[in-house]
């Protein structure tokens, strides 16, 4: 075998994220500038998106960040993605998500709320102070990352729309536009992608509405312009490119439940003791590491979230 165990790479050898970005940004920026100048004078150019790689202003650190974990490199977080709307290969999203238009964008809140409202994306970005939340992300496939998301607790939205007493669950709907997302043309999943949380899970301070990554505007392949992140659940629970948030009384069916209810439950909390019917969930491979490490109960957030599930049989409610 020619595959060698990679030697530890000294930090000085790693291209800094800024420099890595600049490499392509510089070329893109110069080309775009020229093109934009031409189109702007012709009066037909409208900005399509807030570019990934643009710094988000006033991002502060958060006490809710996970400490003591090395961050997964920006390159891996943005080139190894599960985002079936852009194809089922891991590199498909980073290759094709540039077709997604993230401006204009709005998110409708509806259902069991006293103040339903359609939020413009600019409003969402400024709704609450932006925080950096470093979280572990465990994919149901058995790999994991540590990602510095930018956003704020989802409860900020809940507070503003004032759910009624009938609101027991929240349903997130992602964009499903075959023009911008070529994967939608394949009936791999039941589009649009929907996910859901119980109200107390949605209210939990760790659950965030996310608009950025590594201090910058969220790249399209990571769910731009706005997504949710629930760090103690498997990655597929984190709906991307959200267009609708609905508060409902009955537990909503989620896309992966509809695809295979035996394999993907509504809760989908990270749990090393409850295997996927086809593979073990006891271990995971942290992207960038060689060996496997033990998967932690609730992805290591048990102290904060285990009480949400007190008395529940987690084998039954997987």
């Amino acid at each position: 075998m020619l595959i060698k165990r990679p030697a530890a790479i000294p930090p000085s050898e790693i291209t800094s994220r800024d420099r890595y970005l600049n490499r392509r940004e510089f070329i893109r920026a110069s080309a775009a500038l020229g093109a934009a100048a031409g189109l702007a004078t012709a009066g037909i150019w409208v900005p399509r998106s807030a570019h990934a790689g643009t710094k988000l202003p006033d991002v502060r650190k958060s006490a809710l960040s996970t400490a003591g974990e090395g961050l997964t490199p920006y390159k891996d977080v943005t080139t190894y993605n599960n985002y079936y709307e852009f194809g089922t290969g891991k590199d498909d999203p980073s290759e094709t998500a540039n077709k997604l238009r993230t401006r204009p964008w709005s998110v409708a809140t509806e259902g069991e709320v006293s103040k339903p409202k359609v939020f413009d994306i600019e409003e969402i970005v400024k709704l609450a102070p932006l925080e950096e939340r470093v979280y572990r992300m465990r994919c149901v496939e058995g790999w994991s990352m540590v990602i510095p998301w930018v956003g704020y607790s989802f409860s900020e939205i809940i507070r503003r729309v004032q759910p009624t007493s009938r609101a027991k669950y929240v349903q997130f709907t992602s964009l499903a536009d075959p023009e911008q997302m070529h994967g939608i043309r394949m009936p791999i999943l039941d589009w649009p992608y929907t996910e859901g949380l119980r109200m107390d899970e949605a209210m939990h301070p760790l659950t965030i509405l996310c608009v950025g990554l590594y201090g910058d505007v969220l790249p399209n392949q990571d769910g731009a312009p706005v997504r949710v992140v629930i760090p103690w659940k498997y990655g597929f629970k984190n709906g991307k490119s959200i267009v609708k948030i609905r508060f409902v009384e009955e537990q909503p069916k989620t896309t992966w439940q509809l695809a295979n209810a035996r394999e993907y439950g509504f809760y989908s909390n990270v749990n090393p003791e409850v295997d996927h019917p086809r593979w073990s969930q006891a271990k995971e491979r942290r992207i960038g590491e060689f060996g496997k490490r033990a998967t932690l109960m609730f992805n290591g957030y048990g102290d904060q979230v285990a009480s949400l599930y007190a008395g529940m049989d987690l084998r039954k409610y997987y």
Partner: protein
Amino acid sequence: MSLAQLKPDQVKWLKAVLFALCLVPFSRLAWLGAHQGLGANPIEYITRSTGWWTLSFLLITLSVTPLRRVSGWNWLLRLRRMLGLFAFFYVSLHFTTYIWLDQFFDWQGILKDIAKRPFITVGFTAFVLLIPLAATSTNAMVRRLGAKRWQRLHRAAYVIATLGVLHFWWLVKKDIREPLIFGTLLGLLFLIRLLYLRRRLTASTPSTVRSQAA
């Protein structure tokens, strides 16, 4: 030069070229590995790639006989052993990747996987079944077994390819397009084989059927 009849040294050249071609997927992996080109999850990449090429080589090997019959190019048969052995080469890499890079010799975990995970059970079975075929691939072994017995044994290639497709099918999360393509091609090859078998049976006289059965 007629393609129907190649001279022995022409076949020799062809084999050399084909050998180099069959090594391309491996060389590509090695090159990517040496240049940080295997992506964020290199072990998954290697596992997927070697598995994909194993299935491809199994199907290519199984298509030699139908191709020979359709084209009349009998020399194709001279390439079959090498193609089959390349299937074994890639499955060995695939299996080694799993044992070494993926599980890192966690024998307890490996045994549990083989027993508990149906997709690993069938994949492992296919690998084990391929070993005797690789071991009996030499001329000496063909002679020792006798052509008839050897042929019967090597029909297991169909079983192995079927298990291989199943292994792929059961491991994908939702997008079954690729295993479906492999499965369809395999089904087609099997169908061609059945058609030829039927033709041979209906064409043969009762006496030859009896002598074949004896």
